[in-house]
Each structure stands twice: as structure tokens, then as C-alpha cells.
């Protein structure tokens, strides 16, 4: 049961990331951003000491290697979306095939980011895939 709850939590995060607002089109970004968002305990970075990107990727620190079941859940969601024809994956590129409308993610961090001028998710998305991977390796 816990596994299904975990997968549904990741599903709404991934759908938000693929949606109109963020338009994430890289598999590697989708996997690690989803993990960072779900494991983010702060709702916003209002009183941060570090750069937003460092704050965001800091969620990978220790947690990622100790929670392989989270990565499995993310991969399961992506796999289901792929096999059921919602998305297509070619190399690292992800393309949305059916429109994901009438959907509102309830994840606290995503809600907290919604009206921010400096949106951490958008800032992280500005990194290209290679730079993104570099950041993952730096923080993992």
C-alpha cells in the first residue's frame, strides 16, 4: 500500500513537471528533480543561506543513496506513463503525447514555488542536461 501512495505522490510531481508551467523535457532532470521535490522539507527558500540551486540539490545528499525505493517508484511512474502512451522517451528527451489538463499538484514545495519570482524549479531547469548531471554528482 505504501508503495502505491509513494508512486501516486511522485505521479503528481512528475505530471506538474511535465505540464505547461515547467515543460521539463529531459529524463535525467525528471527523475532527480522529482526526488528533490518530494524530499524537500522546506516549502520555500525565503530564508536561505545558499544559492537556490545548491539548496535544491542538497536534498540528494545522503537521502538518494539511502532511498533506492524512491528512485524505483519514480522509474515505475515514468515506465507506466510511457507504456500507457502519455509520454515518449528517446535518448534523454521526453515528449508529452497527451495533454495533461485539469490537474493541480498538492505537493507543498511545488505549491510554495508557484507564485515565487525566483522559482527554484525554473532556475534548476535552466541548467542543460550535462550541467544538471554534474550538479547531481556534486550533491549525491
Amino acid at each position, binding site marked *: 500500500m505504501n508503495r502505491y501512495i509513494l508512486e501516486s505522490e511522485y505521479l503528481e510531481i512528475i505530471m506538474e513537471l511535465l505540464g505547461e508551467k515547467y515543460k521539463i523535457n529531459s529524463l535525467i532532470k525528471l527523475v532527480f528533480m522529482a526526488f528533490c521535490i518530494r524530499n524537500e522539507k522546506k516549502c520555500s527558500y525565503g530564508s536561505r543561506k545558499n544559492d537556490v540551486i545548491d539548496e535544491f540539490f542538497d536534498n540528494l545528499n545522503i537521502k538518494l543513496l539511502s532511498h533506492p525505493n524512491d528512485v524505483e517508484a519514480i522509474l515505475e511512474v515514468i515506465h507506466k506513463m510511457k507504456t500507457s502512451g502519455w509520454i515518449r522517451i528517446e535518448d*534523454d528527451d521526453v515528449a508529452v503525447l497527451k495533454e495533461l489538463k485539469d490537474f493541480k499538484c498538492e505537493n507543498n514545495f511545488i505549491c510554495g514555488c508557484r507564485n515565487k519570482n525566483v522559482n527554484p524549479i525554473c532556475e534548476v531547469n535552466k541548467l542543460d542536461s*550535462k550541467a544538471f548531471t554534474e550538479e547531481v*554528482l556534486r550533491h549525491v
Partner: protein
Amino acid sequence: MFRIREITLYRGAISKKYDFTDNAYIYGNNNVGKTAFTKVLDFILGSSEELSHDGLDNIDEVGAYITNEKTELWVKRNNTRGEFSYKRTENSGYSVISYEKYKDMICEVITEDIDIKAIQVYKKVFEENPSFRSFTFMNFVDEIGQGDLGSIFTRGKEVKHLVRIRKIMDFFFNYENAERIYDKTLELDSLENEYKKSIEQLRSYERSMEKIRDLYGELGLDYSGDMSIDFETFQDYRDCFDRKTTKSNGELAYLLRASHSLAEEIKVYRYLSKQSNIAAPRKDRTAKLLSMLGGIIAENPKYEEEVNIITRMIKEIKNDKIILSLADYEKSIQKIMSEKKKIDREIRNLKNEASELNYDQTLKKLALVENCFAIINSGGDINKIKVLEEQVLKAKKEIKDLKNNYSQKAVNDFNKRLTEMYLDSAVKNVQYLNDDRNQVDFFLKFDPFSQVLVAYHKEGKADVAFTPGSMARHNHLQLLVYLCMLEYLHKNFKNFICLPILIMDSPDQPMEPESFEEIYPSLIKVANEIGIQTIFISKVKPDVVEQRDLIDIRTGFNPFHKNTDDQTERE
């Protein structure tokens, strides 16, 4: 054998004396000062605590008359001034001594011929100076803590004993090893001393080599690094100030630039070296991430495609960084530094060529060079240092191995004797003991290191541990462990500084009177066989106790106690 023959309480000129036999039995009702009696005994035997127990008021001094087969000792301890005093004959006067001396005096009565070797072994192995007070937890069965098979020694839980009880047990039950550790430690000490001396010699040899090089530069002499050639150069110069021209033919300006350029290069390489050190743990983390992703595919092959995309990307980045982490910057830095040193030497030589020395300075420097050559000739045997280093490491390893190597034989023998003492006693009509006798393969196992006593019996083919019930049984077993321990010490550590006395404060409380009538003589029998003095304190007076052993404190142990005074006045 050590015996306490008298205890005397003093209040000014008034005193109250209690005489002790080999198996004294003190009895009295509740609240008459039975536990206070044990506190007084502990106090006069050198406890670091003062007489603060309830009911011990108005006592100025406590005295004791202690004997063994050959000698007598009268000791006195002042409660208010904290003074310790002693005398050797009954009619002589007391002499005030220090606390340490007081303990030594008592120690001399415990045994005339102290086993110095054993004490030295203890000191060396456990880095602690023991006195007989260190082992008193084996002499007192206090009321608090009785019947606890998880902590057999009632004083074992006190912080002052707790910290060293394991060491003490280790020493008693692993003495052979302790002795070997002691010998090895002595060997290690001498090796380390020799090693230190040799290292010091080597250092001064190295310093002299460096100093000669500098002095040669200052004198404008050609330094080759080969001591025989350099010595010849020195002799020639000393005899007639004949100086061969230096081989340096470089241009000073060029050499200075080269030295600066190399210094900058070293700076860059140091930065890269630091960066590569940071890259190393990152490499580990990357490997862990890849391994985690690999594990996911192994369990769920359906994610292979997605995971492969991620791993491909990670590997690409990893390969970009690999050059940084593979380069051996330290080696490069060393090479550049050695080149820089050569250039710096040439610069120094060139600069020295331009300077002029006066006669006094030259003579002074020559004397220094001569002194350095003398040091170089006297020693600095690197091979000897290497051998010593190996020997020191070997000795340290052997000591470590010995410390970790426990011989179970002593503990097993102890447990065998303990079981025998319990089951084969003359006690016939005690229910729990008969129950245990009827168990299949019943045996007791005391772990001296954790102070836990467990009973075992056979269930099917297996030995099963169980904690036996009944508080009376627990107390009985606890007393036997104390006796067995004292017997073990008596047999194996004959002249060790351990008091041959057992003071028991009301361990008969949970026992039925009929059972106690049987158990008490069996305990006394064992104690007499070992040769220890027993002081038993109880509420009841059993018929089996001989009249001469009895000490009646029913009217109160301390005659100077305030309430007792009031009562007397009223009477």
C-alpha cells in the same frame, strides 16, 4: 592470617570495645546500627568516606586491633580531624601517620611477603597503582544489591569500583597473559628508548648534512654531496684557504627568473592537487550512485532503458573528470621542487662568490663544518633504525594480541568449583537446593567480567541458561561467589594485597530460619577451609552459632548515639 580482633569506638575518654573471633556473628533488631557496624569496619579499614551514616554520631575516633600469626597492629582513625595513627605494641603511644602510610601498615599485616611482581604487573598492564582498597568490593556483602545475579558484587555498581572491576577480573582470570604483557611491555620500553636515541642521532646527522651544505655555500666551496670528496675540499681550504672555482656558470638574472617560474608552477600544482583530493570522494559517490542504479535494474529489468539513459550521462561526466583525479600531482611537485632546489643552490653559490668573508668569520665557519663532520662520522645508522622500528611494531602487535586473547580455563575452573561448592555442600533440607540438585546437568556460570551469574540445565541435548527464582537462592549463590572468589585468590594469588575477610550484612533475610540454620555452618566451613575471617550481621540469632562468636548489639551499636543517651538519661 589477617584478623580483625577488636573494634573500639571512642568518645573523649569513654570507649566501647567489640571483640571478634574468626567467625564473628553480630545480631540485633532493626534500627540498632547493624549496617552502621559495616560502615565502621570499612572506615577503620581505610575507606575514603567519612563516618556519615545515620547512628554514627558522637564518635570521635575508631580503633582496631589487627593481627596475623606473627605481628600485631593497633590502628586508630579520627573522625573529626581526619587523622590516622598506629602503634605496634599495646602499651606504646599512637603515632600519627599519613593516609597512604596507614594503608601500607594494614597491608603489611595482610601479608608479610607481598607479591611485588604481581603488583608491578598490575601497575604496568593497567597503568594504575593498586592498594588493598582497590579489591574491597570482594570483602563486603552490603544489604543494598543483595540477590541481584546480574551484578554479583554489591559494591560493583559503585563508580569507584565499576571503572576498575573489569580490569581487576581481567588481571585475576587472565594473569598468565598479564604477566606476558608485562614482560613484553618492559621489552617494548627498552626498544622504544633505543629507537628514540637512534632517531635523535639520525636527526642530528641529517641536520649536520644540511648545515654543511649551507656552510659550504657561505664559504664559497664546491659542495658535491659525496662526503669523502667534500671532506677533502674542506681539508684543502682549512690548510691553505685554497678554493676550487665553483662549477656554476649560469647567469644570476636568468636563474632568479627560473626559480620564480618554478615557484609559480608549484603553486598551480598544489591547487590542482587539492582539487583532485576533493574529486576522490566524489568519485566514490558516483560509483555508489551507479551501483544503486545497477541494483535497481537487476531487480526490475523493465526499467533498463530509462536507467541506461541516466547511467550513460553520469559516465560521460565521470570520464571528463577522470584526468584530474588520476594525475599524481605530488610527484610532479616533488620533481619541480628538486629542480628549484638545484637552481636556488646555484643562485646561492653565485651570490656567495660575490661576498667577501673576513678571517674571523671564516675560522668560525670552519669550526662549525668540522663539528658537523664529527657528528656525521659518529653515526646515523638507518638500517639499525629500521630494524628497531620493526621490533617496536612487532612488540606492540604482540601486546595487543595478548590483551585480546583470553584464556577461558581459569573462568571454567572457577565455575566448576562454584557449582561444586553449591551442590556438594552439607545442606540437605533446603528445598531450592534439592530442586537444583535434581536438575539434569545443573551448573553455574559466573562471568567475572560482566559480574553476571547464570544457571544452566539440560533440556533435551542442549544446555539451556535460566535465571533461577527465589530470593533466598539468589542470596545463597551470591555469598558462594564471594567465597569462591576469595578461595580463588587464596589459591592463585597467595601473597596478594587482598583482605582475607568477608563482611556480610543481613544476607539471611529472605531465607527461612530452618534453611539458614543449615546454610550458615556450610558457609563458615568453606570460609574456614580458605582461612578467611567472616563477620556476619543479622537480625536473628541462630542456635548453630557458637557462643564465643556472638556479638550482641540489641541495645544499640553506638553507645554515644544521641537517642541512646537520651534514653539512658530517662532511665
